[in-house]
Structure formats: structure tokens, C-alpha cells
């Protein structure tokens, strides 16, 4: 029976091509707009580390002095001192220290002009904890961290830029005035959102290159605006050692804790540490240590912006307006079919048969509208990609689930908004309208 109704739906489509086309267009426009905004919003709120987002934690400690507000401000960064003090607990499976600097980079053998580049400073665990894929070589080892070696890992893009995409492992890159040796080149890699650094870059590509955090410290590379640096207390001296010893909070620390027991153990460990510090006069504000898992972190830091949700609501409103118009067209369409309905009723179709026939007809129109809507959404996403080119392109791509939900949504809303027209059509009396077909 279903295939019979589909056949009737297609015949009906041919019978009133303009009306049907307008219905498809209205559905397609609403669905296209909704799915464009929804795709961006959905992609923004993806789990960046599906395999372990509940086991990776941001370590947060309120090391501030007395009198600071307890609410609002983000404590995603800790001081260099505290990081150094807690990093040897031996409890987490991995520690990842995060900071960043900017520098001028060039391949001394090929380029005369250095290029301003963003540098992620971190440690060997970064590549293991985030399971980064490598095109050539690998991350540096712990030895390199300990000795603060001048080693460097490139993204695929920067390897293309500086080494024309060749295997550059073992070669050198000029970093300011000194040379760093390439140990690895990442393959395409993008956490979505890229939660581990600053919030404002959560939807951008990874930094161009990676160097050991300890090398940053040894070479006294000052952090710039790629890092949130909260200095609530001024410090004496203007050398780098003074900065390191200061109460400035600028280091992001992530840990991977394998289970609840490890988590509790680690929480107790940092609480103990904070208490010790308090005994020595630091942490005067409060003892407030948090281990924030990735999903909670995304919420706390408002990485998924309300703007994108707002856009979804607006386009849903637009969809509803389109559907209300479409409903008028459905009324007209079914009204024009009163003769056929009367005849079908006369020869034995029940009301349910009529409802089923027209539901399938609307589902078919909705499905076609969904298909066209998908095409419109691709255009919409292409435009969004151009307009917001600081956002990563993969935000603007639908996955299979989104494609299927688009079609399902189109079919469902078409049938929902068709309920009234279908109901009215089913009330057609079998005796009426039999004269005109």
C-alpha cells in the first residue's frame, strides 16, 4: 500500500507541478536555513575527545590573595610555581602543560623572509594524551623536556610552508635567532573544539609549531596575547626569573586520570598542596581546587557560544513561517483534490485510507524538500565558511547523522503541518464533488 501511495504522490506532483514546486521550495528554504545554523552549532558542541573526555581534566587552583571575588572569573590558568610543584605527584597517567608564544620562523636554507608564527609550548605528553597523528617522525621524548632541547614539531600546513611538504625530520628551522631541529610533522589534526588553549581560539586551527615548554622557559620566551595571563599581584624585578617566580597565572595544566580512585587521590593531593601553601601564606583567598573534565570545561568557559544557538532559534522561526505558508498551499492542493477524495471514498476508501494517502504525499514532498534543503544548506555553509574564515572549516561540514536528520526533520515537519489540511480533506463526504474531477 505504501508504494501505491508513493506512486499516487508522484502522479499528484506532476498534476500540480507549480504548487508542488512552491511547497518543496518553502520547505527547502526553511530546512536549509535551519540546518545551516544547526550544523555550525552542532559541530561547535561536539565532544573533542570522545574516547577520554571524561578522564581528561583541567587542573584549577585559586592561588589568589585575600579579597578576590569567588564567582565569575575563570581560573583555567595556574602559576608556574604551582604547576612545577604538583607536576611530580606521579598520580595522573599524563600531565600536559600548555602555553604559547609568537615568533618569526623560517627555513634557513630556503627562505629569506621569516614568517610570524604561533608557537604552542607544551611537553611530550601532549602528543600521547591527545593521540596526535604523525605524518613524519613523532613528538619529542621526556628527555627533550628535561634538557629543554631545541626541538620542534610542525603541523602539516607549516611543513608545507617551510619544507614544501617533504619529510623534514632532522632538518632545522630558524626560530628567532636560534635553530630548532624538527622531530616530527603532524598529519591533519583538529580537536573540535580545540579546548586545551585559550577560549578565543577554540575553533581555530592548531598553532603552527610545537616546542617544549621547558625550552620556552630556558630561552626566556615571554608569553604574549596568545595566553591568558592574570597577574593579580605585581612582582619585583623585570627579568624572566622574576616572572616565573611571580603570582601571575598563565600556565594551563591538563591531566589524564584513569579512574575515579585516581581522581580522588589527585584531588586530595592538590588539596593537601594548597593547604601547605596556605600555611605559608599563599592561597589566602580560599582553598578552591577543581578538576574540571573536558565537557564541563566547555560549559564553564562558554566555548559553545550562545550566538550560534540564537541563530538556530531564529532560523527555526523562519522554518515555521515557511511551513505556515506551505500549510496554506497544502490546503489549496487538497481542496483541488476533493473530487478524487469523494470518488475514492465512494468506491470504498475509509477516512484512514485518505489520511494515509495524503500523509505519504506530504512525506514525499517533505523528503524532496529535505533533499533540496540539504543542497541549500551546503550553499549556506559555504557562505558561512567564507564569512567566518577564522572558524575552522570542519565546523561547516555536515556528517551523515546530520544529513539523515535533515531528511527526517523535513518529512516530520511537513506531515505535522499537514495534519490540519489532511484532516480537512478526510472529512470530504463521499457523495459530494462526484460531478467534478
Amino acid at each position: 500500500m505504501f508504494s501505491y501511495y508513493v506512486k499516487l504522490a508522484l502522479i499528484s506532483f506532476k498534476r500540480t507541478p507549480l504548487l508542488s514546486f512552491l511547497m518543496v521550495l518553502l520547505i527547502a528554504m526553511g530546512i536549509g536555513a535551519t540546518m545551516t545554523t544547526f550544523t555550525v552549532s552542532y559541530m561547535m558542541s561536539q565532544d573533542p575527545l570522545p574516547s577520554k573526555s571524561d578522564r581528561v581534566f583541567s587542573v584549577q587552583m585559586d592561588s589568589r590573595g585575600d579579597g578576590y571575588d569567588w564567582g565569575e572569573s575563570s581560573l583555567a590558568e595556574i602559576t608556574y610555581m604551582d604547576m612545577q610543584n604538583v607536576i611530580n605527584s606521579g598520580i595522573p597517567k599524563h600531565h600536559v602543560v600548555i602555553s604559547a608564544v609568537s615568533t618569526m620562523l623560517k627555513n634557513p636554507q630556503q627562505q629569506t623572509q621569516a614568517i610570524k608564527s604561533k608557537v604552542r609550548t607544551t611537553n611530550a605528553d601532549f602528543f600521547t594524551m591527545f593521540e596526535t597523528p604523525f605524518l613524519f617522525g613523532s613528538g619529542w621524548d621526556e628527555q627533550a623536556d628535561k634538557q629543554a632541547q631545541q626541538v620542534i614539531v610542525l603541523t602539516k600546513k607549516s611543513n608545507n610552508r617551510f619544507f614544501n611538504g617533504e619529510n623534514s625530520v632532522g632538518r632545522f628551522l630558524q626560530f628567532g635567532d636560534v635553530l630548532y631541529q624538527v622531530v616530527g610533522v603532524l598529519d591533519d589534526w583538529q580537536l573540535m573544539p580545540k579546548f586545551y588553549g585559550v577560549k578565543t581560539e577554540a575553533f581555530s586551527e592548531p598553532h603552527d609549531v610545537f616546542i617544549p615548554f621547558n625550552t620556552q622557559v630556558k630561552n626566556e620566551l615571554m608569553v604574549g596575547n596568545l595566553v591568558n595571563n592574570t597577574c593579580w599581584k605585581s612582582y619585583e624585578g623585570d627579568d624572566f626569573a622574576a616572572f616565573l617566580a611571580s603570582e601571575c597565572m598563565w600556565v594551563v595544566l591538563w591531566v589524564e586520570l584513569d579512574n575515579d580512585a585516581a581522581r580522588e587521590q589527585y584531588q586530595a593531593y592538590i588539596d593537601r598542596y594548597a593547604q601547605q601553601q596556605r600555611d605559608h601564606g599563599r592561597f589566602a583567598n580560599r582553598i578552591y581546587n577543581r578538576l574540571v573534565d573536558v565537557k564541563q570545561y566547555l560549559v564553564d568557559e562558554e566555548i559553545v557560544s550562545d550566538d550560534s544557538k540564537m541563530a538556530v532559534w531564529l532560523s527555526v522561526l523562519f522554518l515555521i513561517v515557511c511551513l505556515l505558508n506551505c500549510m496554506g498551499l497544502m490546503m489549496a492542493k487538497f481542496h483541488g483534490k476533493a473530487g478524487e477524495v469523494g470518488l475514492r471514498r465512494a468506491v470504498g476508501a475509509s477516512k484512514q485510507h485518505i489520511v494515509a494517502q495524503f500523509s505519504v504525499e506530504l512525506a514525499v514532498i517533505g523528503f524532496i524538500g529535505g533533499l533540496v534543503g540539504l543542497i541549500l544548506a551546503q550553499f549556506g555553509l559555504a557562505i558561512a565558511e567564507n564569512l567566518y574564515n577564522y572558524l575552522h572549516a570542519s565546523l561547516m561540514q555536515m556528517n551523515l547523522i546530520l544529513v539523515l536528520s535533515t531528511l527526517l526533520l523535513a518529512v516530520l515537519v511537513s506531515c505535522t503541518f499537514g495534519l490540519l489540511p489532511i484532516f480537512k480533506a478526510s472529512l470530504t463526504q463521499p457523495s459530494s464533488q462526484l460531478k467534478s474531477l
Partner: protein
Amino acid sequence: MLKMTGLAKVYLTSDVKTQALQPFNLSIEQGEFVAVIGPSGSGKTTFLNIAGLLENHSEGVYELDGKDVSTLSDKHKSAYRNEKIGFVFQSFNLIPELNLYDNIDMPLRYRKFTAKERDERIMKALEQVGLAGRKNHYPTQLSGGQQQRVAIARAIAGSPSVIFADEPTGNLDSKMAQGIMSLLQDINASGTSIIMVTHDNEQAQQAQRIVQIKDGVLSEDAPILAQAIA
């Protein structure tokens, strides 16, 4: 088969009350060929629609195969129309977008027939009305007489026990009309009751019984043929 007792029909349309049919009694047996005659606007179509379960009556009792139809749900009535009743209308009422095969298929779709059985029934009905070779044609490609034959094929494909025909020859010239009449005679001969509205007196004379309606008043005449024998 069909028994109407004190049956009447009143139409109420925005403070105008039309007594389309005055109370009447009538019963028709299985296999009868009944002609319904009367001037235009007298209530013939109304009578046929009520008898064919397309409309409800206002007063009295209508028993069909021993069942009071007022107790039947809409769904039951639909199923009854589908299985036991065939309709033939003055303006053929074929669906122009469907070919002959699909037009005849339409009532069969609402029954639990297999595709094979539907196909057999459609082909048999088309043969019976002499259009077997044109199953893929569309209604507009046929003459009026041929279209009415398709409508008859649609009516008989489900093997109904009664066919209601409302002026089936009203839109046809007399030669075509006679073809339709003899087709209906053949169908009646195989046991199917036929109740046919007509305003052609000559056609009415070919029926076994003649029911006359004048201004909503129903009465029965014996056909001239029968009178002559009596």
C-alpha cells in the same frame, strides 16, 4: 437484500429546509434490475446516494442484507461500499492521471487482494467491457461511451452484489447508450442487482421494475411489458 421502511431525507441548509424524499417503503431482492425515473430535481440521486451508503437518511429504517445501516460505522460503510457495491456515475468520474488499468485498480487497492488477484480481476473486467487491448490508455484518449465502459469495469471488478448507476447514459448518444444498456443487462444476467436512475423512458422499460419519484414522492409502476403480460 435491501429494505427501506418509512425512509425520508431532509436537507438543512442555512435556514432552508428541503424535503428531498417523503417517507416511503421499498424493498429490492437480489438479482433485480430496477429503474428509477422522474423529472430533474425530484430526488433520484438523493435516493441512490442513500441506497448506496454515500449519504445518511434522516428518518426511517434502512436495512441492507438484514443489517440496519444506521448502526454501521464509517469504516464499515466504506468496506461495504468497497466489497458489495459498484457505482457508475453520469460523468464517468475516472481519474484523468491514471490509465485504465490503474483506474479499475483503485477500488481493489482498498481490499486485501494479492497483486496477482487484482491483475486477474482488472483484466477480466476490461475484457467484459471490451477494452482489454487498451489498459495503458488514459481516459481522455477514449470516447464517452468507452469511458463509461471503463467506469463499469471499475464497478464490477470487485464482484459486487449490486450496482448503483446514476444516469449512466445521460452524457452519451443513443447508440453508445444502447451499448451501455446491454452491458448492464449482461451484468444483471449473471446475478448482480442493478439499480439505475434514468430519465429515458425507453431504457426504463428494459428493467424488471420501475420506481418513480416526483417531488420527493416515491411510487412504483409496473413496466409496460409486465403490464401487457398481466
